[in-house]
């Protein structure tokens, strides 16, 4: 307890009454902030320690041991698990898959949601209707959407919607989710995610657009800026910087967390094809699945955490997050 707090506590005049009342005040008095702090925060800190930090530390410890089917290992292997994981094609392929996915889905969603926001923002009539129409897919479950895409729109047989349309134009059937050359499965994964999330980010951009002062546009018009691209480039886009930073950060995090559509579109009872296996799923199978190689899985988890940390810090630097505050 700090001296200041102690001083405050002593400054409160003793209440008349029994000794019990004094004890109660001592333990539960409104001024005893340290006690209340620990009563409210303690259980959460304890939970955080027991369920997060201790397992995290133990996982790092395990990563230096050969730990098959045990969490109390004895055979020290040094960096052996790390080198094995980095040489493991299944793990590196999964990282590559998610890098490609992020590199595509982040700019695509950004551009589509911004375009939708600009269009809806310009509407003079029925703006609320179109805003709702574009936003509604965000309320749909990823699982349901992925299954509709897989079973109905993009199944590989002649009665799938996409193949029916192709058939009208004399095209051959395409096995959308089973073809790697060309990799049509990307079209399915990307379209379902775009459909689901573009509306949500459109709403964020709409909020950003509505915060731009009309006087800026008036001033631009006075200065002779042509409406359209020139105004967008020099007024709208720079004014959306804060929104853009938030949107891109959310998109990157969501891209690396992608799981539902990969699971529902591409997995089967025997697992995932090598080109579409999320890294976390691979680590799950390695450590907690039948593999039960907890040392190797832990090394993979540490590597993945390091990669995510480096990407996040790099991204924050690139966007200049915190720069203004520091100045």
């Amino acid at each position, binding site marked *: 307890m700090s001296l200041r707090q102690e001083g405050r506590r002593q400054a409160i005049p003793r209440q008349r009454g029994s000794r019990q009342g004094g004890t109660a005040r001592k333990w539960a008095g409104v001024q005893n902030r340290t006690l209340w702090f620990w009563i409210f925060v303690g259980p959460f800190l304890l939970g955080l320690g027991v369920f997060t930090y201790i397992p995290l530390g133990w996982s790092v410890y395990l990563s230096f041991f050969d730990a*098959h*089917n*045990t*969490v109390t290992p004895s055979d020290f292997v040094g960096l052996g698990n790390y080198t094995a994981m980095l040489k493991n*094609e*299944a793990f590196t*392929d999964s990282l590559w898959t998610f890098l490609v996915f992020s590199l595509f889905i982040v700019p695509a969603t950004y551009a589509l949601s911004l375009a939708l926001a600009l269009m809806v923002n310009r509407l003079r009539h029925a703006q609320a209707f179109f805003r709702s129409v574009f936003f509604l897919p965000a309320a749909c479950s990823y699982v349901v959407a992925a299954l509709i895409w897989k*079973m109905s729109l*993009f*199944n*590989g*047989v*002649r009665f*799938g919607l996409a193949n029916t349309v192709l058939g009208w134009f004399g095209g051959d059937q*395409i*096995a*959308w*989710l*089973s*073809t*790697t*050359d060309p990799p049509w499965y990307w079209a399915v994964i990307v379209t379902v995610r775009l459909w689901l999330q573009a509306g949500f980010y459109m709403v964020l951009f709409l909020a950003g657009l509505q915060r731009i002062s009309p006087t800026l546009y008036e001033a631009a018009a006075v200065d002779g800026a042509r409406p359209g691209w020139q105004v967008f480039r020099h007024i709208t886009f720079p004014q959306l910087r804060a929104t853009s930073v938030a949107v891109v950060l959310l998109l990157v995090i969501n891209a690396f967390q992608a799981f539902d559509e990969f699971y529902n579109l591409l997995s*089967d*009872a*025997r*697992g995932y*094809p*090598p*080109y579409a296996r999320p890294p976390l799923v691979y680590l*799950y*199978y*390695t450590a*907690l*699945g*039948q*593999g*039960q*190689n907890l040392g190797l899985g832990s090394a993979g988890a540490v590597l993945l955490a390091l990669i995510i940390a480096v990407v996040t810090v790099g991204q924050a630097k690139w966007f200049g997050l915190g720069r203004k505050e520091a100045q």
Partner: protein
Amino acid sequence: MTISRRGLLGTGAALGLLTACGSHTGRDDGGPGGGPELSQWYHQYGEQGTEQAVKKYAAAYDKARVTVQWRPGNYDEQTAAALLTDSGPDVFEVNGPTLDQIQGKQIADLTGLFEGVKDDFNPAVLAPKTYDGRIWAIPQVIDMQMLYYRKSLLADAGVEPPRTLDELVDAAKKLTSKKTKGLFLGNDGGAGVLGGTPLYAAGLELVTEDGKVGFDDPAAARALGKIHQLYADRSLLLGAPSDWSDPSAFVQGLTAMQWSGLWALPTVQKALGDDFGVLPFPKDGAGEPSVPVGAYGAAISTRGKHQQAAKDYLKWLWIDRTEYQEDFALSYGFHIPARISLAKKAGKLRKGAAADAVRFTTDHGHAQPLRWTPASQTAYQDALSRIIKDGASPDSELKKVVRKVSADLDRVKKK
């Protein structure tokens, strides 16, 4: 009526105490009849009535109180993780067990339960449950996979049922039309389901008896190259609404031939009558036809408190009560009883395609060897996917797999 804070707290405390008194963890001693309480896990079967059946068997046991848990989801992962803790099952179904589970002393030795009946268990499925001369799980029922073909479609195309891998490639091509594909090996082109079957058909193995890689041979690359040929010829059905384990694509006429399981036989029979036949996976080169067989086993966790009681229960259920085994195999789904004597006398398995399936299992059955670890499986399956879909060189892909599998075989040998 107003409730004071003190009254509310008092009521809450009383309710909490009552709840605690009535709590039942399923792990206490003292079930009815004086026996211990055992917890038993099953994976979720898709067949109607199976859950009720296993609960009925458990309820009929009077020397312990057995609580059955029917567990949906990733069962293999659930049990593997549960074996690390004291809160897992006493008795459980296992898709294996794996060699690591045996070497990690997570599974109890059940050799003693097989006294006098060991020879009555199908050796193909008992072998992967045997390590170091000891038996670690009791095979429950046998599942196998085979090739279904539509007789009328083959006759219309002038194609004979394929007996070699080359004939399969030719037949699938001839049977492919605008509306119907020649063959369905699953939506991934067979990478997931085929496993070691083409290798066995080429006269090779996944792991040799002395614990070496069994497919470091040019014949392996040749056989897998032919599976890619099926994909390259566009003879394979891909992207069907249901996968290989479901016969829907076959009975709907989307494919003329389909690789599926014995469990699909009743559905196919109901839909097509006699207009279908079954075959093992055709041989390649100097090999023999092959079918994969497997069996969920009943095992005991070494972390359970009542291991002897669990052993007594398993002996009663899967060795002594043969009528339950036959009921479990054939009354709900369609499987082969693990006991040879039961399989022979089961009326449903004596004629037609079912009898063929039993014969394939006996003559051409290969189970996944115990030394074939999950890491080896992932490496091989990924390579198979690259060979089939990407047209990757079978030679170079298999060389990488051989290195990986050799390293894992060395690891398990050292233990």
